[in-house]
């Protein structure tokens, strides 16, 4: 049997890179993308310099996947950006950039992936939200709005794509030691962690474990779900 083909967005650093290495270890053929070039490589890994919000670039990446592999089994919509700022001090350019990457990117990738997955009548799409949504995190209005939209997209895409054998689910991590929270003050992180049932920082493996569950062929009856980590 051919190894599954897994597309992961935002693989340059952080969660995306960890997931790419995780699925390479499990024998997947992994395609990754990021705006900036990556400084790492592995056997079985193909990288595309694609901005997830750029429709032309995204379509070109899927053409390449179709030519190289003829199929796509899994899409992990990990790419995301954040901005910690009070709404009264947030420029609209920041709001637009967050919505473009987090919402438009997730939509575009899911749409193009579904076209390819549909051919086989099988596919798994995993989106990324955040515990900032149920926690209604003050100081992250644009980010929370974008990640709420990702949950809404997950619900609707799950229904629209079910007939093609494609499931669409979502994972909502809490704080992790990544660049995304580099500039967030420690006090803010501590307050956030205190609202979780399990008040610790998440790990890359916590996320990989949740994504593993959604990707399993046996999870074909699980769709439209969001799992928030840490007990939020």
């Amino acid at each position, binding site marked *: 049997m051919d190894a599954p083909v897994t597309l992961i967005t935002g693989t340059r650093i952080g969660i995306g890179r960890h997931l790419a290495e995780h699925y390479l270890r499990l024998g997947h053929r992994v395609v990754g993308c990021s705006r900036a070039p990556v400084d790492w490589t592995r056997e079985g890994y193909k990288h595309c310099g694609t901005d997830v919000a750029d429709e032309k670039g995204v379509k070109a990446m899927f053409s390449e996947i179709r030519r190289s592999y003829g199929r796509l089994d899994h899409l992990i919509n990990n790419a995301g950006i954040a*901005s910690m700022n*009070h709404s*009264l001090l*947030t420029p609209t350019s*920041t709001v637009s950039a967050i919505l473009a990457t987090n919402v438009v990117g997730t939509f575009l990738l899911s749409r193009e992936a579904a076209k390819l997955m549909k051919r086989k009548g099988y596919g798994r799409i995993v989106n990324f939200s955040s515990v900032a949504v149920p926690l209604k995190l003050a*100081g992250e209005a644009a980010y929370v709005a974008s990640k709420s939209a990702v949950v809404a997209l997950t619900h609707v895409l799950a229904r629209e794509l079910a007939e093609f054998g494609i499931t669409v689910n979502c994972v909502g991590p809490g704080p992790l030691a990544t660049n995304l929270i580099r500039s967030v003050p420690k006090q803010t992180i501590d307050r956030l962690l205190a609202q979780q049932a399990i008040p610790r920082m998440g790990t890359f493996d916590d996320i990989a474990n949740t994504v593993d569950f959604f990707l399993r062929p046996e999870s074909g009856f699980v769709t439209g779900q969001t799992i928030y980590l840490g007990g939020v």
Partner: protein
Amino acid sequence: MEQAQLEAPPDVTHHDVHQVVELIIDNVNQLKDTQGLKAPAQLDSATTLFGGDGFLDSMALVTLVVAVEQAIEEKFGTNVSLADPGAMSQEHSPYRTIGALADYALQRLRAG
């Protein structure tokens, strides 16, 4: 567009940083009177506002920046937005000191 022109743009190049610094100091003093803000008695362009030994917490910063935006509109007739993606960053914030905020406000005014 971050900025909306209310009327013909004034020739703000003749207004130096000093005028905007005074405008910011006036607003800090008003916040001291109306909202009990604890600020140093002597304020000048080198006074730290936010981060380090700054006297503003994040909510007081929001209040001051919005008050300065409104005061600039009243004084210069131009609606500027002083919102900035680096607002909460203690290293790169344009709100670190009164002087930095004045420079930033002038820059936005000139961009008119």
